[in-house]
């Protein structure tokens, strides 16, 4: 009985959080046209979010590519079809691993930084001070960071995917001796424009989700040191779960 009640309460809290996040997103979207007019603020945040995550995304992309190359080669060799290694790894990276892993890394690096930055500004009255200076912190602080994350994510996904494919090439062609011409031509014939579109679509959706969760958690954090700590933890957990759920829903819908 206790478990059922707990699940019920968790579910109710989840729906409630989802609702207030949706309202928050609505406000951000309403402000977006005005926010884009001050594009310098947004560019600064793209740079922030991008620069924070770039190194770990390149490094992780490379190693994910290496592992994909190894596992893919091992699996395909059992069917004597090592030749499709290039196409198979590219598909996995473009449609799934690129967007998903990038979003998870983004949440851990840039998302936590965003949440704690905004939470600390709140805890130290910087946001109240802005309101008193007749500056709306939603427009001046939250919106540029949200848009920066939304723009940065597809770029980071592209970098992750490209480096991942390079990693698979290193294993497949340089180490295992797959013919380079076949590696690339198989990739070209196997990957369709629809696959690429799916990857781009996912990276945009995940970018919105990850950035929204980070700025929402920061902005609604309890204004104490402990509250800011909780907000960063929640950012990682909520982003990870929602990205995986969204990934399933998008994949199922597009199939």
């Amino acid at each position: 009985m206790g478990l059922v009640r707990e699940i019920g309460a968790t579910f109710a809290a989840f729906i409630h959080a989802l609702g207030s996040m949706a309202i928050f997103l609505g406000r951000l979207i309403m402000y977006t046209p005005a926010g884009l007019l001050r594009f310098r603020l947004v560019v600064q945040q793209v740079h922030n979010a991008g620069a924070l995550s770039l190194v770990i995304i390149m490094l992780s992309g490379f190693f994910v590519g290496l592992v994909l190359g190894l596992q893919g080669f091992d699996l395909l060799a059992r069917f004597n079809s090592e030749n499709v290694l290039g196409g198979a790894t590219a598909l996995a990276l473009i449609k799934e691993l690129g967007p998903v892993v990038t979003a998870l890394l983004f949440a851990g690096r840039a998302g936590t930084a965003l949440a704690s930055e905004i939470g600390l500004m709140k805890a130290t009255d910087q946001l109240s001070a802005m309101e008193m200076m007749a500056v709306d912190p939603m427009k001046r602080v939250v919106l540029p960071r949200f848009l920066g994350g939304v723009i940065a994510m597809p770029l980071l996904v592209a970098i992750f995917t490209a480096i991942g494919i390079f990693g698979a090439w290193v294993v497949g062609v340089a180490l295992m001796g797959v013919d380079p011409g076949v590696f690339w031509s198989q990739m070209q014939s196997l990957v369709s424009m629809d696959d690429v579109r799916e990857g781009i679509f996912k990276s945009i959706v995940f970018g919105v989700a990850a950035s929204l969760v980070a700025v929402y958690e920061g902005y609604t954090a309890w204004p104490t040191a402990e509250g800011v700590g909780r907000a960063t933890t929640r950012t990682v957990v909520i982003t990870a779960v929602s990205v995986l759920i969204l990934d399933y829903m998008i994949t199922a819908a597009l199939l």
Partner: protein
Amino acid sequence: MTLAAPEGNLIELRGVRFRRGAFRVFDGLDMTIPKGKVTAVMGPSGTGKTTLLRLITGQLKPDAGSVRVGDYEVPELGLGRLYEMRRQMGMLFQNGALLTDFTVFDNVAFPLREHTRLPERLIRHIVLTKLHAVGLRGAATLFPGELSGGMNRRVALARAIVMDPDILIYDEPFVGLDPISMGVIVRLIRRLNDALGLTSIVVSHDVNELEQVADHSYLLAEGRVVAAGAHRELMEEDSPLVRQFMHGEADGPVAYHFPAPEYGEDLLGRGQERR
């Protein structure tokens, strides 16, 4: 619309009620703030001094009653009009609330850059003038993290006056300062008020510092004004509550002891079952 009301009361609160959950912070509060003066609002911690300021600035809305600032009826303002009103107010937060990743200069320039299209040369002139007024022109390139608590508050003060407000509000400006910084802030409050023709509200529980700046004082307790008048009159008033607060007596109408079972019984362990 402006705050350029005629002489008299610039801010008027009438029958203000405000509650936090079941707790009544204000239950019929009346208060007037005269134009051009420094008004002190005193009271023990938790009586609602900060809440009062947030009601005046429109960050909170009263459950009932009227809050008038100049021509504005604050609780009825939409966000646009509220921001219009706040542009004519400056507020000093307890810890300065400077933007941590901006330099001192950029912090003070922030309201100008947000609200005006002044050329950078003019902004520089205004900002350095205001920083000079608080004695920190030399700190323009430092970041807030490199300043002491007192300096932080002075920079915040420069920022609060950079748009030439009509009203300046200080929330606990003396807390946590060393005696020298405290003296500096006390003199700044007086000097800025008179030189710039401001109306100042100083919220604090530092009776001695307020004595040097306040033209007029209010003492809040239990959700209402318990005493009002010139600071010296309050010092001499002999209602027990006012005396306890103004002279810092430990026990009085505001009890020193948190409610507890009878002492003797408690020591003998008979109060235990109630815990």
